[in-house]
């Protein structure tokens, strides 16, 4: 496994290795565990940089600076970082909605060329279609399927997210949490290999957020999908993830990776939980005491 704390900025001149992500990879000074990399990675981000043109001609704003990371199949990985650091941008590149300036992203061993129905995105601003009711929203990714199969799948996932009885309701009639459940059900119903989630619970109130997290973990355990989850909420990351990738300020890179080896369901009062949480806070240069700032 990786040693937290000794990961540094990867150097730009990374050697290219073959696209299949073979037995051993040199990514900067990381040496990835041979056993883990031998199974094909679900997501493999190598040396990705992104710059935007600035306001004046010739100006360039660097958003991502040689980011490298790796998500294994079936893994739940959270991506955290200070707000505006580019974590959503990175997720959009992985999802195929943005193209990196340099570097490459391999998903299931294939370079990403655009959005793909095998990997479904759950959006921060809720992408549930307001003109469709819950049933039709959940069935949106099932266009090719037979009627019985569709209905069975829809009913199954509506039940899984706890919306049975609301099949005919329209999104405007639902609460924010319920709408987010519809979007998760829609993503699951399409039976993707990977689900990308971009701060999906950001707009919800505290209690709803806690409940949604518990439900998401339950669903993930049942479905065994790979999830790459962006959040700015450190507690959320520690509650959900197998591993947490911590990004630095802009131009962002992966600052450190923290393994959360806590059994589920997680006890939010256990010393191990608090220890992990505090470790991430520390890495991100934040104090746990209100009114005090640590120097980084």
């Amino acid at each position, binding site marked *: 496994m990786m040693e937290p704390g000794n990961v540094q900025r990867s150097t730009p001149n990374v050697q290219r290795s073959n696209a299949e992500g073979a037995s051993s990879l040199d990514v900067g000074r990381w040496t990835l565990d041979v056993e883990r990399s031998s199974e094909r990675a679900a997501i493999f981000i190598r040396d990705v940089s992104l710059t935007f043109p600035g306001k004046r001609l010739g100006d360039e704003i660097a958003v991502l600076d040689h980011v490298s990371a790796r998500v294994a199949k079936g893994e739940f990985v959270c991506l955290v970082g200070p707000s505006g650091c580019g974590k959503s941008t990175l997720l959009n590149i992985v*999802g195929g*909605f943005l193209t990196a300036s340099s570097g490459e992203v391999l998903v299931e061993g294939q370079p990403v060329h*655009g*959005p*793909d*129905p095998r*990997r*479904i*995105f759950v*959006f921060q*601003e*809720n*992408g549930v*279609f*307001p*003109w*469709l*009711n819950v049933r039709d929203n959940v069935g*949106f*990714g099932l*266009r090719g399927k037979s009627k019985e199969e569709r209905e069975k799948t829809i009913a199954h996932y509506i039940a899984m997210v706890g919306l049975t009885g609301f099949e005919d309701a*329209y*999104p*405007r*009639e639902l609460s924010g949490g319920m709408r987010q459940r519809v979007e998760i059900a829609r993503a699951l119903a*399409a039976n993707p290999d990977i689900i990308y989630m971009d701060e999906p619970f950001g707009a919800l109130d505290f209690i709803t957020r806690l409940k949604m997290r518990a439900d998401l973990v339950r669903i993930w355990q049942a479905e065994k999908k790979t999830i790459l989850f962006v959040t700015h909420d450190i507690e959320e990351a520690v509650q959900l993830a197998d591993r947490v990738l911590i990004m630095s300020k802009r131009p962002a890179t992966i600052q450190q990776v923290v393994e959360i080896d806590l059994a589920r369901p997680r006890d939010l009062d256990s010393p191990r939980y608090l220890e992990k949480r505090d470790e991430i806070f520390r890495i991100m240069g934040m104090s746990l005491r209100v009114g005090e700032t640590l120097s980084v």
Partner: protein
Amino acid sequence: MPRPALRTAHATTLLSFALPVGVGVMFLLGWHAAVRISGSDLFPTPVEVGRGLLELARQGLLLKYVVASLFRVSWGFALAVAVGVPAGLLLGWYSRGFQAFNPMIQIFRPISPIAWIPVAILWFGVTDAAPIFLIFLASVFPITVSSIAAVQNMQPVYLRAAQNFGLSRGELFRQVILRASLPQIITGIRIALGVAWLVVVAAEMIAVNSGLGYLIIDARNAGKRYDLVVAGMVMIGVIGLVLDLLVRQLEKFDEVRWGYARR
């Protein structure tokens, strides 16, 4: 949604009916008084207008004229929707097309249908096609422009969700772009229907021999029949109100209701 208590709901409905009726009655009284006080011999009182309307109804002309005007507006407007909505969706989606056609649309848009009357007569003669053409022209630009804006203002998240599910171009247009822009398109259509109906008088100045616009022009020819002129105005206004109420019903469907702010 929370519902107000039954009695309050009742009172609200009653009030929402009584208020506009009250204003209407006040208007009629004011009108009557103004004619009486000014001693005008030409301008009719509401009573005279009512009598004129009755006379028209008894002759069967009122129904004929209303039908003729509605016929022209229905077809001109239906054609405008059939052309304007698809054109707006395409131009809203393809920015090159928008760049190419938008200046032309903006040039044609402010031209009053009255200016088109000579063209309409030269192209279509004095048939029903001429007023239909004028009504089409008056309504197709507002519809196209609002459809373009609807697509351009569409929330990008719907588009990205749709792209994520791997929709073909046709599916994307029918299932997402059209559906996402529909509320705004319907608002545009409502405004355009008002414009279409507004233009009916001008459109029927062409020598068609029926319609509410014709009624007004014919009444001017008829000497001192200003009661019929105002009767035509009243009918146009009342039917315009009914048409607007009907189109508003479209906004109540679940498929578009999300697009209107709840009050």
